[in-house]
Structures are given as structure tokens and as C-alpha cells.
């Protein structure tokens, strides 16, 4: 049987499909990708349904090999370092992983999440209709946990790719992380106008303690006009709650289904990935848009994903920074210390 073998994995590498929908009313978190647009792009490039099961790669990095047959892969991980048997590849690449070869994906100079889609189907049993991993409740993926060394992911209907690696052309993933668009509410009336202005302007610094559940923001604390406790209501992905300390928290894929802090605004769907990709220390501000503008943005995103992902032969300039870094390592660092 053809399988993808996890040779090594850092923390936070999970299987994610489009999410576990339909059970929020029972307290079941949808989970799903942190960067939905990037995951859908990887699936599109691999010839899969956009919400097919893919590997979500964290900055912990992952090393993979194939077993039982060649497997076509589409890796979309902007900013990550990618190497096949030690040879650098672009960070967005379609390739065929043959048995005996090793693909390494490691954190690079940017990017918090990458996605590896398989041409074929990663055959893990869905739980409540989905393979999305929610580690806090132990649901989905591989036994409800993150992937680790020694795991074997069976691949049904595996298709090998077409020869040499190709660079994937995905300009829509070159997103400006500094401005995140939001729709105000649902509880913006808990804040005075000057506090809403301060919230939008920021700047906010992304705290390094974020995870799949939430993105924490550091900056000048906001004040509440009507207290910071509300009777619990529903929570959408991207909801920005402001607890008692006045520092906003953006609730992400692994959030709880309900919550009891006022939510000043909600990140629009198309900007969720842009925010998710910002690493600790990054500075952001928010920009208010209307629901209609957000829907238009969503429609544009859908149009992009309907087209095939263009491929170009890999050329040396695609990974120039890796080469330069390699040269630096060979250079006179030791001499400098002596």
C-alpha cells in the first residue's frame, strides 16, 4: 500500500480538511486550516477537492518519505525552506516523492503555516464527518493528535506527478500582513468611538504565545464602556474578543464555539490566513470594511481557486536566498570569532 511516512515532525503538524461543520451547536469546534486560502491552493494544485485532507505544517517543520510507490505532492509553504534529498526547492512546488527520497520542510524567514496536499486521498477515517484534527478534544486526524515520527499516512488512489519538480505560481498568496480587514461587531457597542478608533489604528504586535486556538495581540490596552463580561454567545472564526485586560485576542480555527467576552470586531474570512501567517513580533493594524466588501473579496478568492494553478520549471533564482545563506555558512564565521 502506498503511504506517506513521517520521518520527523516538530510540534503542531496536523491533518486538516475543510473543517468539521454542523456540530458547533453541540460544542464541537470546526478546526480546519489556519490559512484556508493556502490550504485550498495546495489542494487545487494537487488536483483534489479544495477541502481535501492535507498536512498543515507549522514552524516545527516536517520530514517525509514515500513508501510503496511514488506520490505526487503539492507543497505550498511561502517563506519555509524546502529540500528534496538536500537539494533546495522553491517554497511552492509540485513534485513527485519517490520511495527512498526525503522531503524536508523547515521554518524559514517568514510564514507560520504551510500546506502539503497529496495527489490522491490521505485515507484516515473521518470523525463527525471530518478528518480535521482538534487536538484539545482529541478529535480527527490521526487519533486526534499531531503527527509524529513513525506515523504512516495511507494514500488511496495515489497519482505520481509529472517528472521534475515545478514551481507553483500563486501570486494571490503574496499578501500584505500589516493590514487586516475587519467587520465591526457583534459587540462593538461595548466600546466608545475613541476605543474603536484606537483598536483599528493599533499598531498591535502579534504575541509569540499564539497557537491554533487564538492569536494574542500586545499594545495599548483598550477600555470597555459597558464592562467586559457578557452572557456567552456564539463565536465565529476571526472574532476579536477583548477580555478584562484590554488586549484583543483573535479566535482562530481551534476556538471554542461560544464565549463570554465582548467581541469588538471580526476578521473577514479572506484575511484569516493573512493574520495566521504573521509570526510573533509582527506588527499589524486593522481596517474596517463593510459586509458587502468582505463578500466581494470572498467572491474574488473563489474565482482564483477555480482556475488551475500555473506551473513553471524550477530555476536557480527561485531559491536564491537559500543558496546565499548556504554560502554564508561556508564563509568566514569561524574566523570572525577567532
Amino acid at each position, binding site marked *: 500500500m502506498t503511504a506517506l511516512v513521517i520521518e520527523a515532525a516538530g510540534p503542531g503538524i496536523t491533518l486538516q480538511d475543510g473543517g468539521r461543520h454542523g456540530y*458547533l*451547536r453541540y460544542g464541537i469546534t470546526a478546526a480546519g486550516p489556519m490559512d484556508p486560502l493556502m490550504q485550498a491552493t495546495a489542494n487545487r494544485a494537487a488536483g483534489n477537492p479544495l477541502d481535501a485532507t492535507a498536512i498543515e505544517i507549522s514552524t516545527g517543520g516536517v520530514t517525509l518519505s514515500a513508501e510503496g510507490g511514488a506520490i505526487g505532492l503539492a507543497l505550498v509553504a511561502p517563506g519555509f525552506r524546502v529540500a528534496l534529498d538536500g537539494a533546495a526547492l522553491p517554497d511552492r512546488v509540485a513534485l513527485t516523492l519517490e520511495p527512498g527520497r526525503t522531503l524536508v520542510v523547515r521554518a524559514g524567514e517568514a510564514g507560520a503555516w504551510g500546506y502539503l496536499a497529496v495527489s490522491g486521498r490521505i485515507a484516515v477515517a473521518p470523525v463527525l464527518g471530518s478528518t480535521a484534527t482538534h487536538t484539545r478534544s482529541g478529535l480527527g486526524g490521526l487519533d486526534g493528535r499531531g503527527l509524529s515520527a513513525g506515523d504512516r499516512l495511507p494514500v488511496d488512489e495515489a497519482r505520481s506527478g509529472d517528472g521534475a519538480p515545478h514551481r507553483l505560481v500563486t501570486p494571490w498568496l503574496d499578501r500584505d500582513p500589516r493590514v487586516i480587514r475587519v467587520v465591526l*461587531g*457583534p459587540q462593538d457597542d461595548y466600546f466608545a468611538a475613541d476605543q474603536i478608533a484606537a483598536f483599528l489604528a493599533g499598531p498591535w504586535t502579534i504575541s509569540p504565545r499564539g497557537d491554533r486556538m487564538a492569536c494574542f495581540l500586545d499594545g495599548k490596552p483598550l477600555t470597555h464602556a459597558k464592562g467586559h463580561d457578557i452572557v*456567552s454567545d*456564539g463565536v465565529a472564526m476571526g472574532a476579536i474578543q477583548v477580555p478584562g485586560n484590554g488586549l484583543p485576542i483573535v479566535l482562530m480555527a481551534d476556538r471554542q464555539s*461560544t464565549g463570554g467576552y465582548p467581541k469588538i470586531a471580526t476578521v473577514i*474570512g479572506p484575511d484569516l490566513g493573512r493574520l495566521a501567517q504573521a509570526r510573533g513580533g509582527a506588527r499589524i493594524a486593522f481596517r474596517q470594511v463593510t459586509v458587502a466588501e468582505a463578500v466581494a473579496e470572498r467572491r474574488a478568492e473563489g474565482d482564483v481557486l477555480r482556475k488551475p494553478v500555473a506551473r513553471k520549471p524550477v530555476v536557480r533564482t527561485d531559491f536564491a536566498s537559500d543558496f546565499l545563506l548556504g554560502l554564508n555558512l561556508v564563509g568566514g564565521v569561524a574566523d570572525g570569532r577567532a
Partner: protein
Amino acid sequence: MSAVPDEPRLLDAGEAALVVEFGSTVDPAISDRVLALDDALGADPPEGLRERVPTYRSLMLHYDPLVLDRAALVERVRALAAGTTERTTNTTLWTLPCCYAAPHGEDISQVAERTGLSPDAVVATHAGATYRVYMYGFAPGFAYLGGLPEVLAVPRRASPRPPHPANAVVIGGGLAAVATVPMPTGWYVIGATPARLYAPERDPSFFVGAGDLIRFEPVDAATFDALSAREAAGEPVARRWESRT
């Protein structure tokens, strides 16, 4: 009791979710409006409506805005909210066996201390009430129950206690709950039910809905073990009663 407005407030939670808010407090009359709208939308859901999440005071509607236009959803919600103020489905009452004895009712003595009741009176008071499932949230299958007698309204702990086992029966902050998944909690664990409100591998995975009523029936530890074995073998031990509203 707070007044329930005729017209709900409609609040956007981004471009793919709408909060239909009937009030801002925990109140059975508000919950009735929430659940009536939930029923009505569930009976004939518009295409593109992805999830309905009832809470104490609001119904959150997750929708695909490329399939279901916000204006169309709003129009539908307004019409239904105006025309549907009472629940259309039958009220279901569940009797859940509950063992308050050791080792399950771990925190009963603490509750007795804080309320001034005897441990037996804590049990009798909790088991004597009828609870209403307001909502699920916090964790898979975590059911928030209203109807806790006032004398048992102890505040939640300042810091969480160690994790409880699955299907713990807990109280705190004036509410009761069934906590299906083991985790640290600020609530007090006063018993456990052998009934699994949440079992992901079972069909249906959940059987108690928001708006259902629950009573707890005290059982001893030996009965709890026997019922747990039956539940594990696929024989449900919760008993169901139905009445027309």
C-alpha cells in the same frame, strides 16, 4: 425576568455569521425565543445556512454568503422571528441516572460547606430539580443547564480544580452542567452520569438538544457501574419522555 423585545437585534459577526440577539441575560423567556427561531429555521433551512448555534440569549447563524445573501437571510429571520414566538416541537424530558456517592461526587462536601446544607440535602436538592438545556459550549457536549435551585448557587472556583472524569455532573455560578470531556474545571463536581450525552462514534453522537429538560435520578455506585457497562455496550441508559407543549 427581563422583558423580551419583539424584534431581535441583528449583529454581524463578520461576513459569514449573523447573531440574532433576543436579550442580554439568562432568562427562560429569552431562551424560548431563541429556540423557537432555531426550530423554525431548522424545519426549513435556506440554502447556504451552514450552522445554527443557540445560546442563552441569541442564535448564531453561520452562512455561506456566496450562496445565501445577507439581505435574504435577514428577511427570512425577521419574518420567522415575528411569526414564531413559541417552540413548535415537543418538549423532551430526559432522566439521567446520577451517582452522587464516592468516588463520583468528589466535591459534595465542599458544596455542603459553602451552602450550609448537609451533603444529603445537596443531593436531594440537586436531584429534586428539573433542568433546562440552555446551550452547549466550552467543550464537546458540554451542556449548560438552567434551573439550579438558588440554595446551590455557589460561585465558581477562583482557580480550576484538577481534571474530572468524563460525564461529570457539575454546578457553579448558579448553573448546572454535564461535563462530558475530562478537563480541569472551575465548577464543583457533585456526581457523574453513566449516560454519555456525547459519543463521537455513536449515531447519533448527541441525543439531548438545546431546550430539552433533564432530571437526575440518584443511583448508588454499584448501579452506576452496571449502567456504565450497559451504556458502553450500546444500550442507552438515559430515559426519554415526551410531551406536547
